[in-house]
């Protein structure tokens, strides 16, 4: 068993890995070049497709696909109008699978998400009407507009990939991915996501404004017809499930694991943070790194992958201290500082101290 939760000495919490069947015989020998090529080809197709909609943001798109392959959920947080919803919808549409979109409003009820049992007059029994969560892709728009109780209805489904209504548990189909957007500017009448729920998102991405050239191109393409309409699926759900399965067998060496733990530990001991990253964060960081490595055609994870993903995966889970907030340091900056400080272990030699 080369992968799994036990590698980090952590077995509780996330049920994501358990939802998929145990690794087959090939899993023991790791991932083959055919798998890598397939991952590479498929993800390239998806990225190309999405990038026809989202101009000039290859990094954002890549990160979104990484989260998809890593079985994570994505939180898109940015000012209005930069294409959060567009990205979510484009990603969903590029894959041939069931997509549901939930517009979160203050009056949205938990049952709208999970589903509700309705009394069938003819059969004289309750019948379960599945909610919007029953899909491969769930696009939650303006997630912070809904009340906390509605938000928390997402919790179980996101983490455990199942929904329990009236004591009955319904399993969700794989792949399952929640892409939520939220707007950090208009905080009036919103309910910011609680820490517990933020922690369930693998990564938080800020789309950001496009470059002037990209914005010009966007004027051309979006002027006539929405490119989203043109978007055709380039992969199907079963293929994505297969890729996810393959990504799990990407090799993570002891050094990289140790590095990840060091990095997460550093966030827990950092004097700039009130709350450090959870063990779930460690897991999801490694999982995301696996996906990133596979997308680059590598069958092993580099510390580079961890470093590259650390800000996106860790920053939204951390709570800064009052001093940090007063000195206007964001948690992104803090994580970047930690990445720049924690030594990268290497085989045999340990961290070398050339300059300090």
């Amino acid at each position, binding site marked *: 068993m080369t992968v799994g939760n036990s590698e980090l000495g952590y077995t509780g919490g996330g049920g994501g890995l358990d939802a998929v069947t145990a690794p087959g015989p090939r899993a023991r020998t790791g991932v083959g070049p055919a798998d890598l090529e397939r991952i590479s080809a498929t993800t390239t197709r998806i990225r190309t497709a999405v990038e026809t909609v989202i101009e000039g943001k290859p990094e954002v798109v890549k990160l979104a696909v990484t989260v998809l392959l890593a079985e994570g959920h994505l939180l898109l947080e940015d000012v209005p109008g930069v294409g959060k919803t567009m990205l979510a919808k484009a990603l969903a549409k590029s894959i041939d699978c069931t997509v549901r979109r939930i517009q979160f409003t203050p009056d949205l009820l938990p049952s709208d998400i999970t589903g509700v049992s309705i009394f069938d007059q003819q059969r004289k029994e309750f019948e379960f009407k599945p909610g919007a969560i029953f899909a491969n892709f769930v696009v939650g728009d303006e997630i912070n507009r809904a009340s906390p109780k509605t938000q928390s209805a997402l919790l179980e489904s996101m983490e455990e990939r199942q929904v329990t209504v009236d004591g009955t548990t319904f399993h969700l189909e794989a792949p399952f991915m929640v892409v939520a957007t939220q707007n950090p500017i208009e905080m009036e009448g919103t309910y910011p996501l609680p820490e517990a729920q933020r922690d369930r998102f693998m990564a938080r991405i800020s789309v950001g404004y496009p470059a002037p050239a990209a914005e010009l191109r966007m004027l051309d393409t979006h002027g006539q017809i929405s490119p989203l309409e043109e978007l055709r699926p380039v992969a199907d759900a079963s293929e994505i499930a297969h890729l996810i399965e393959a990504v799990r067998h990407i*090799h993570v*060496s002891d050094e990289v694991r*140790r590095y990840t733990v060091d990095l997460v530990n550093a*966030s827990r*001991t*950092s004097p700039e943070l009130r709350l450090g990253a959870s063990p779930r964060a460690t897991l999801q960081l490694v999982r995301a790194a696996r996906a990133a490595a596979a997308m680059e055609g590598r069958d092993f994870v580099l510390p580079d992958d961890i470093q590259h993903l650390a800000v996106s995966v860790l920053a939204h889970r951390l709570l800064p201290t009052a001093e940090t907030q007063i000195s206007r340091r964001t948690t992104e900056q803090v994580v970047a*500082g930690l990445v720049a400080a924690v030594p990268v272990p290497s*085989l*045999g030699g340990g961290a070398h101290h050339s300059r300090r």
Partner: protein
Amino acid sequence: MTGRLRIGIAAAVALLLTSSGLLRLLAPGTWVWPIVLAVIVAAASGELFRRLIRPRPLVVLAQAVVVFWYDMVLLAHDEAFAGVLPTWSVFSRLGNLYSTGAHDIRDTFVGGQATSGIAAILVLSLSALAVLVDALAATYAAAPLAGLPLLALYLVPATRSGGGYDWLAFALAAAGYTALLSAEGRDRLGRWGRPLVHAGRQRTGADGKPVAAPKARVDTGPIAATGHQITMYALVLAVLAPILLPTVSGGLFGIGPDSGNGNGNGNKDNGSFSQVLNLKATLASHSEAPVLNYTSTKPEYLRLQTLDEFNAKSTTPWTPDPNAPLNPLPDDGTVSATVPGLTLTNGVQPPTVNVNIDYESHMTTKVTATGLSSLPLPYPAKHVGIPTTGFSYDTNSLAVMGVSTIYDGMSYSATVYDTTSLPPGALANVTGLTPQDMTQFKLGQDLDATGTPSEVVQLAQRIVAGKTNPVDKAQAIQNYFLDPASGYSYTLNVPDNMTGASAMTYLLHEKKGFCQLYADTMAAMARAVGIPARVALGFTPGVQTGGQWQVKEQDYHSWPELYFHGIGWLRFEPTVGIDNTLISGGHGRIPNYSTSTAGSTTAPSQNPTSTTGPSSTASSANKCPVQIRKAGGCTDNNTDTGTAAPAAKSKFSWLGWLGAIPRFLQYWLFGGSGYAIAVRFVLLALLLIACVPMVLRIARRRARGKLASGRRAKGGPEGEDGLDWESADVPSPRRPEEDPERQRILAAWDEVRDSATDLGYSWPVSETPRRSAERIIRQAHLSRPAQDAMGRVTGLAERANYARTLRRPSAPETAPTPALMDDVKVIRAGLAEPVSRRTRIRATVLPPSALAALRERREDFTGRVYERVQGAGSRLRPRGSRGGSGGSGSGESGGSSGSRPERRGDGHGGR
């Protein structure tokens, strides 16, 4: 401890350390403790009043009152009311004490006991200084200004004491002031800046126990550490440099080792050269004061006087002949038309040398007993030209003396015979004394050896045993003293007040002494074997500067003159090391009288006896230091006949097996006092230590090269092509760090990293291999091949570090990759290209990577020691926060330190 208290304490310590210089002025005694107490009282009262009173002038005033009260109780309590309350009489008492002390200071010599008056002055002034320093440093927070009173205090002993600036006193004073500045800087830094360590937050460590929250304070560690280092280097340099500089110049340029400290000679202005053997006082002063200059074609011993009378029981055993036959000097200045007693050369007189002498000293050359002044003059003088009249000459010794003084600025000339180069044939014909000699030269007194210790007589007889020629006998005695095998050494450090007999036994037993002992003993030994001898007083030839020879006070010297029938008086030089300025400070020339007529094959010159005159061959031989001769380094001995070998040859011959070491290094290492030698060896050891990083780096590079170059031979290029990596993708049964292939790659990678670090490229520990490589490629503007090489090595290193298998999964058709170490070489060349020459030299001589490795080892060691100490103390208190999560430090350091101890246990090979 508050910052201000620390400053106050530092100020008191600085004052005490600086005042320790006073111990050089006065002998330690009971006066020390009242001063220490006064400083403590000042510091304590200052701290107390700073806490009680706000306005700073009032603090100083109150402090002054308390300290004055302390002084009063100490010095004038019997005048005070009830012993504690000041009255007017207290002031007059203190005033009296002060004036008494001021009077005593004038009468007290350096190193004397402190009288009560002096002690009172010291206590009063130190009290005032203590209040001043404390007020400046702590109350007014101007510690740098407090250095002024400290400097004043330091200068008191430094300018008064004869020995110049003592290094220990300087080091103590400087250390005290530095401590004061350091305390002040710490306080100042502590008040500003963002607190880096937070208080009041409890964290849970890895073991579940709450980790003690560190106190909120500014972490001044790095700044303080840098400051400490700079200060340490500056202090050590300041202390060492003055010790070294004169010595170095002495070794290289012929200036005496103790030059530069000669201003303390108190009797310089109105002293006189002691005519009655107290050379030691003159020599011990090591005075660089000039005595005279002369122009001459060869170095000349300038004689003042001869001492013929010997009294073994007296503390001044050798005295001038009181009945010397004095003749007035003729108007034409002729002293002696011929060399006295020279008959064996068939009337041929030796060559003459013209000497022009300028006397430049305030010292008189007056003989106390006779009231006559002696003229410094080489022996034997044929003719002298003196500007003043009234001079006479001793027909026996040819010493010129007069009633008028030899004054500063007096110039005179002389024509002297050169008796050091008499033909060996003449010397060989020397026979026993005749009655005519005895009467003509009053040799009876010169043969008087009464009271000479029997062991001296026996030694003399043993030395001359088997020799018939008196010249040979005399030469044997001289050689006995100079022979390294005899073990004699030069020192001025001999007991005072020795009688003639005890001085000789002292020399023979202790085998050390200075010119006076050697000259006296040789003269007595010569007399004991029947050769007339007398002791001459005067100067060694001095140092040649330009066309002139300069004679200084430290060239004051004494040597024996021996009489031979048919030859006359010949000068000998038994003083060991007198020809080596590093040993004795003297500039003597050792004569060598040979009776061998065999001649030499290389240079049948007119000068077959090896003289010690101006010839370069002889002088180079004579420069051989005694220590080296002792070590057997000098193969060319001075008794050898015909040493007129070419200069180059003799230069190398005496080096012998030490020839590989440059000559100046030998001088530098072995010359001078034991203290200087020790300092030099310490320096040499430091130099060797400084070479450690370079050697370590080279050794590492070798080892890695050996390890890495074996890779291709085994792995082979077929690993890159054809081979289905999936089927070959069997994880090694070994642990990855024990896989030899990985070790090879990692060795090459480490070499790249160390090369880059050495050449000044930063390589942060938090950077991944890929990012480091990319950054360095950009920084160094690597050429295309070097970039490719860097890419290959980096890729391999990544796989070796982090992949499960080493096989490259793609690109089977790539060109065959060059050997790993070739890539490394290409990279290193590329890295070295853009950096400055200085950086490249540093990369070779003092490679930072090796330094870092050494530091890491040191930290590792101290860490282990710390753990052991902590483990020993673990019974007393639960294991601290250090081990687990490193929660006590800041986050960054916590993370890094947390990872390191684990790494150690991995059993990493190949390093």
